[in-house]
């Protein structure tokens, strides 16, 4: 049952990713891309990563879609005589070879979901330490939040500054001095 759900979600994600690349109409591509993000969010949630799934739903399916829609509203729409983009054969060969190498060499090496041989369980020192000591040391029950804000707080500060820098960079690129 769970295999069926995961297989359906993966098939949905692959299909929407492929159509995003192939649609010639940008508006259609953006809508399918939002569906792709929604599929990824469901997949993350199903694989017990609700924090990541929530981020994917809010940023990927929500904010990114709106920003992309805003972008095509501000740009000139190309004439769309064909429904799908013509496939670039050399690019397809390169990407296909890359996917083949990944699929044949890398994918079988990955541990199964929930396997005890997965690195995160096979080397339990770090993970187990967080899971066992988070509440005693920080007083919060969400280990992800504790790792983000306490154990890896300095990294998170860097990430926060990156978001700040992104907003400033967009202002610089668009020649603006105020946001509103």
């Amino acid at each position: 049952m769970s295999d069926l759900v995961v297989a359906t979600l993966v098939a949905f994600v692959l299909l929407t990713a492929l159509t995003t690349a192939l649609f010639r109409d940008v508006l259609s591509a953006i809508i399918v891309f939002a569906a792709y993000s929604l599929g990824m969010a469901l997949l993350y949630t199903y694989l017990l990563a609700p924090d990541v799934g929530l981020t994917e739903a809010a940023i990927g399916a929500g904010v990114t879609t709106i920003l992309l829609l805003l972008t095509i509203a501000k740009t000139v729409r190309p004439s769309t005589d064909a429904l799908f983009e013509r496939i670039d054969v050399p690019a397809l060969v390169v990407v296909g070879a890359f996917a083949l190498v990944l699929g044949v060499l890398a994918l079988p090496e990955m541990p199964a979901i929930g396997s005890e041989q997965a690195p995160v369980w096979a080397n339990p020192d770090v993970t187990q330490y967080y899971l066992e000591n988070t509440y005693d040391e920080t007083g919060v029950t969400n280990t992800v939040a504790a790792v983000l804000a306490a154990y890896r707080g300095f990294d998170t500060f860097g990430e926060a500054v990156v978001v700040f820098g992104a907003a400033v960079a967009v202002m610089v690129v668009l020649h603006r001095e105020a946001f509103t």
Partner: protein
Amino acid sequence: MSRNDEETYVESQVIMSTVKIVTPFVLTYGLFITFHGADAPGGGFQGGAVIGTVILMIAFAFGIEPTRQWLDNRVVVGLIAGGVAAFGLIGLVSMARGGAFLEYRLLPIHHPVKYGIEGVEILGIAAIVSGAVIALFFVMGAGFATSAIVEGDSETAVDGGERE
């Protein structure tokens, strides 16, 4: 409100009513995710994004340009820069008290580690992300500013986009 040819905004009664009803719930949900980030899935990043979406919804219902004029620039800048400053200050307080950066247990408050993490998530990350979402939306909605372009080719500056 003057409308020129480029503006495709339509004053839709359906969208405006829907946004009026849905917005408080979305804002509450965003705050909920932010404040419960330490004990449930979610946190400052996700909650901040949902909170920022509230302004995006308002802009879609009432027009991007009126919303831009309604929201003061100082609010957006205050959210982003104030968030970075709050995050950094919380880290620096523990340094000033002889510890490492973000060593929460040295903060002079009740339950320092728990509320330090909450403070960083709410005052820092949520503020930065919600401000950045709003800022990116407004900046991209405005396109290229006419007055700020020094080169003086103003013919495409208003509707933007054709330059690159």
